[in-house]
């Protein structure tokens, strides 16, 4: 399994989860974990996804998600899980 972390930040409205999830589904990326929180007063969704079977390399997937983010008027950041593993775990 190879994981990535997706962070979606913006004003809350219907369709954000569906929009992001549909891009993931089209690329054969499985959602492992999903949580919603309020980040500095703004809606934030965090997803852990499995990219090992993804049709696209992570950089392309990031581009597609960010394009979708623009349509939905939210900011999308995508990081490889190793970034978190290196910075938060010894």
């Amino acid at each position: 399994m190879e994981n990535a972390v997706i962070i979606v930040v913006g004003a809350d409205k219907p369709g954000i989860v569906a929009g992001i999830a549909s891009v993931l589904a089209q690329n054969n990326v499985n959602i492992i974990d999903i949580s919603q929180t309020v980040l500095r007063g703004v809606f934030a969704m965090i997803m852990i996804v499995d990219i090992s079977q993804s049709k696209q390399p992570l950089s392309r997937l990031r581009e597609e998600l960010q394009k979708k983010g623009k349509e939905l008027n939210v900011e999308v950041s995508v990081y490889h899980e190793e970034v978190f593993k290196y910075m938060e775990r010894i």
Partner: protein
Amino acid sequence: MKYSVDEIIEVHRMLSEEDLDIRSVTLSINTNFLISSNFEEIKEKIRGLYSFVSKFSKTVEKVSEKYGIRIVTKRIAISPVQFIFEVLSPSYSLSLAKELDKLAEENGIDYISGYSAFADRGLSKSSETVLKSLSEVLNSTERLAGMINAGSTMAGVNIDAVKLFVDELFKMKPEASSRATIMANVPPDSPFVPSAHHGLGMPDSMINVAVSGPGVIESVIKRNKPTTLQELHDLIKRTAFKITRLGELVGKAVSKELGIPFGIVDLSLAPSPKIGDSVAGIIEAMGISKMGGHGSLMALALLIDAVKKGGAMATSSVGGLSGAFIPVSEDSVMVERAIDGSIDFFTLLALSSVCNTGIDMVGVSKRQGKDKVIGLILDVLAMGVILNKTLGVRVIPLDANPGETVDLGGLLGKVVVMKLKDIDVNNFTSLSGYMPSGIKRLEFG
């Protein structure tokens, strides 16, 4: 592996809001195989490096995209060109420089560093060639950088090299002088331009990494409001650990992809002219209302110690300069403090006793004369040699008066001309020769 929401948000905030990025990934290459008296042969061999360098460049971009982490610059460090001039005629200096510049330009490299020479105790024919061609070479190139190591704890300080360097410096365009430095005790593996070079005793090639991240430390201090110095130290140490880990992740990924050894992570915090990416900003967040105020030295010493301790835990491959950089023009807060007079040359000298930069990216007025600049460089090199530290001087001579500024743009920022003391030092700087190595030398046997 499970991550808490807080952990994820912390990393996201560092990368997206607090300007945490990788300052540079540097490919360090042993280029001594270029040595030949036949320039055509050297050119041919430099061309032979194109595919290697281009692959490095693409790999860095690939790693940056994979992890979603900004890598600000890609650099090459080569063996000091001094070695080439042991056999190559000095008349080829400009042609060689242009070939090296082209190697960088055509392969997407931001800087190529190593137009350098060692002249700690005296000048050899080859170090003299490098020194005497420095202004012509840097004025005619865009990415080439060079360094003269004119002092070391082992060998002493060479005033003749300092004087030649200042002669050349005064002939350089401002942007060219930002690519030249004079050093004492230069490390053989630093990824920081202009002192980066491929040192002796290294493998044929390696990957060195420099991290950035002052914004992250500044905001962690502001958010947590520590009440004791130990708490402050601990906060910085923990944050430095995370910053350094990011450097190691990127460096190792590039190294693995290319199949060449991973060299070092330089633990230094490096500022950029962007607001919120300032080392002086950290000192001010600690409670010194203006960098340069009394207490700044202690604050900087505490910062650097914590950065080194956190970093040392994060990577076993520590090297380079490792501390904190305080280049004046490249740090938005330092520039302001230099303009309002909170920082002068003597403050920078004092700060150099605890950091590794020395006096970096400050304008000097050509109208104040060369002698005072020579004196300033001698002060810094003497400090490096006596305290057994790496220190350097990178000043930008300008046709301007103290207090005036020139904007060099990009990472170089706004250069402020700072006033040198109006005291005649000519009788001292007209002495020639070298200062013998200090008593510390005897500790080495």
